[in-house]
């Protein structure tokens, strides 16, 4: 049991917009900047495509942390997408916090296509934070954890 605790590997879902952050993740790869394999990326056209349902779904299915990455405000490929995403996610995260769910499990980070280093650093930091929090218990669905 003790051993299991120390080797806790969190499940992290990262939603990355196609134009900036997904390219930033590619750049991290090209530059061989490592971050834990616990992070799995889902490509979306824009951060504004991320529906709160997807985030809750990830937690339900066993994710321990969800991070959304998009272009920096002002640089959205679709000009306004990340502005909407920013409001939506701010309110959603605030609501999760209001319900007592650890706010550190969710994050939004703006990563440009040139910021491979930032992408890797962000993921390292996020994984460390979530690892410290431990397993997601407050938004878990036991049926999915058999």
């Amino acid at each position, binding site marked *: 049991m003790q051993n299991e605790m120390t080797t806790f590997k969190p*499940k992290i*879902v990262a939603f990355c917009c*196609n134009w900036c952050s*997904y*390219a930033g*993740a*590619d*750049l*991290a*790869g*090209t530059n*061989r*900047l*490592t*971050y834990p*394999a616990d992070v*799995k*990326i*889902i*490509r*979306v*056209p*824009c951060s*504004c*495509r*991320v*529906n*709160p*349902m*997807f985030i809750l*779904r*990830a937690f339900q*299915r*066993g*994710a321990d942390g969800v991070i959304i990455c998009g272009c920096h405000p*002002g*640089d959205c*490929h*679709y*000009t*306004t*997408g990340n502005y*909407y995403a920013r409001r*939506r996610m701010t309110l959603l995260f605030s609501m999760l916090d209001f319900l007592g769910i650890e706010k550190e499990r969710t994050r939004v980070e703006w990563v440009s296509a040139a910021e491979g280093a930032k992408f*890797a650093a962000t993921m390292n930091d996020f994984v460390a934070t979530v690892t410290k929090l431990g397993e997601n218990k407050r938004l878990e669905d036991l049926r*999915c*954890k*058999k």
Partner: protein
Amino acid sequence: MQRIGVFVCWCGSNIAATVDVAAVSDTLKNEPGVVFSTNYQYMCSESGQNILKDAIRDYQLTGVVICSCSPRMHEATFRKAAAAAGLNPYMVEIANIREQCSWIHKDKAAGTEKAIILGRAAIAKVHLNAPLTAGESPVTKRALVIGGGIAGIQTALDIAEAGFEVDIVEKQPTIGGKMTQLDKTFPTLDCAACILTPKMVDCAQNENISIYAYSEVEEVKGFVGNFHVKIRKKARYVDTTKCTGCGLCTEKCPVKKVSNEFNLGLDNRRAVYIPFAQAVPKVATIDADHCNMLKSGKCGLCAKVCTAGAIDYKQKDEIIDREYGAIVVATGYQPIALDKYDEFAYSQSKDVVTSLEFERLTNAAGPTGGTLLRPSDGTHPHTLVFVQCVGSRCEDDGRGKSYCSKICCMYTAKHAMLVREKYPDTEVYVFYIDVRTPGKNFDEFYRRAVEEYGVHYIKGMVGKVAPRADGKLMVQACDLLANEQLHIEADMVILAAAIEPDPSARHLATMLTASMDTNDFFTEAHPKLRPVESPTAGIFLSGVCQGPKDIPETVSQASAAAAKAIGLLAKNKLTCNPCVAHSDEWMCNGCSACEKVCPYGAITYMDKEFRMPDRTTAIRRVASVNPAVCQGCGACTVACPSGAMDLDGFSNSQIMAEVDAICKMK
């Protein structure tokens, strides 16, 4: 159930060194729906692509997952290969196991495990993929330029030169815009009219260009390549086909005291007028607000003197329907109103003028014939004070603009220099916050004003201008560098008023579904990389409507906008991105949330009749997406509360299937 083929690429040793590619292809073979799974050294090579093509045919694959490098690298390659083998290209999904796996994970076990999960996610997505076909729409090979200033003129000339028809719509009776009112232009000091009027004439003579002067855009419908525009041609009460522009009517008209807008009210014109000698088209216009004949039916003098018989008091506004493939906005600017700037006594003294008024006062074709005279008493001014940044860079006082109007530093230097050159007996002061002169030969120009022409540049703002009974203007100001208060007895004060977008721009933007910033400047599709395109496809931006700029910059941008428009018009058909949003009409509430977040104006609403389950019919308001305009960002899909809006290629169920596959316990 799909029949899915999985192809794991080694990428030489790039993937194979840290991911056990055989283990990945063997494991994924057992996933539901997978009927074929293999791995190969270089999937993107010709032989790799042949393996893919053969497998599609041999195993009747309906979906393909390639575990390889980033889709940003080779998605197009594999889609093309799949299409060559008869599979819809959008049935191909890429699992990125190089950039996002093998290159960043050193531990082979962890890398292999992650590669398998990424492969599973791609398989889960492909299960829900549907074949997509890119639509096509035709392109009407004609452009509309809204605004006939230097920006619109340059854009129209360039488009016409490329061989396409182009219409200019200008609300004033003549094209030419603000530049016609200028005297000299910086930094070369050539006269504005000398360089502009030949271009105006070129426009009139170019057979590809039609000028709709004294006209406004009334309605815009349609989308990129297929705009339907209604243009209101306002009644001039003059038959433009008959009028020769002789000007006789403008001399005989008995209504003499109409404020002349071309000279900014510094003198008067008649009720029938031609704005200036080089107007294009050079035809008279009757001002219906002041014409005696139109107001009371008593006069008719102009009709009597017109030898061409061009006067037509019964003329009505005319609506012209035209179709366009591209629209260029060139609506320009105006100086802000100064009624909130009492401290400068603009409304109290005639000798306090704006810089644009000053242009007219020094212009040879202006009200004073080019001699600089005080508007109040017609005397020669000896002391002139220029105040910069009036309303620019000062949002906090609630009456100005936050931005820099960009042109004021240079034209003020120009004015100061010209005054000193022509009237060496004058003292000229310029009060500034900063002097900003980036531009070719701009700083040299400004330094010449200071060093060669002896213009007194003083860093500091003017606090108050008080007209004195003897006609002098008492200017109170501070010199920030010397840290002292100044009192100057001036004869004239010239205010560099901030510029703002033309007030018609906002209404126009609504019609065009083009976005604007908080200052009513049109926004670009990308501030750095697509600076002359609006986010709305087929709408291009030319000149100050996009942001403050001087003439050289305006002309460059006008030509750039023309190049973009030409690129569009040169196409016979537009291929649309097939990954677009679509609305399920049965679920749509018609609430307009999606429409509000769409940056492209791709969503419209219609009332549609539905046959309801209880056999009645109901009329409901439902959204529909124009696939030619939608760019597939997905903002609408989240704004929609009912989930009626979904995105092809990145649907709710596809993304959730990926989430499930990633989060699934082993």
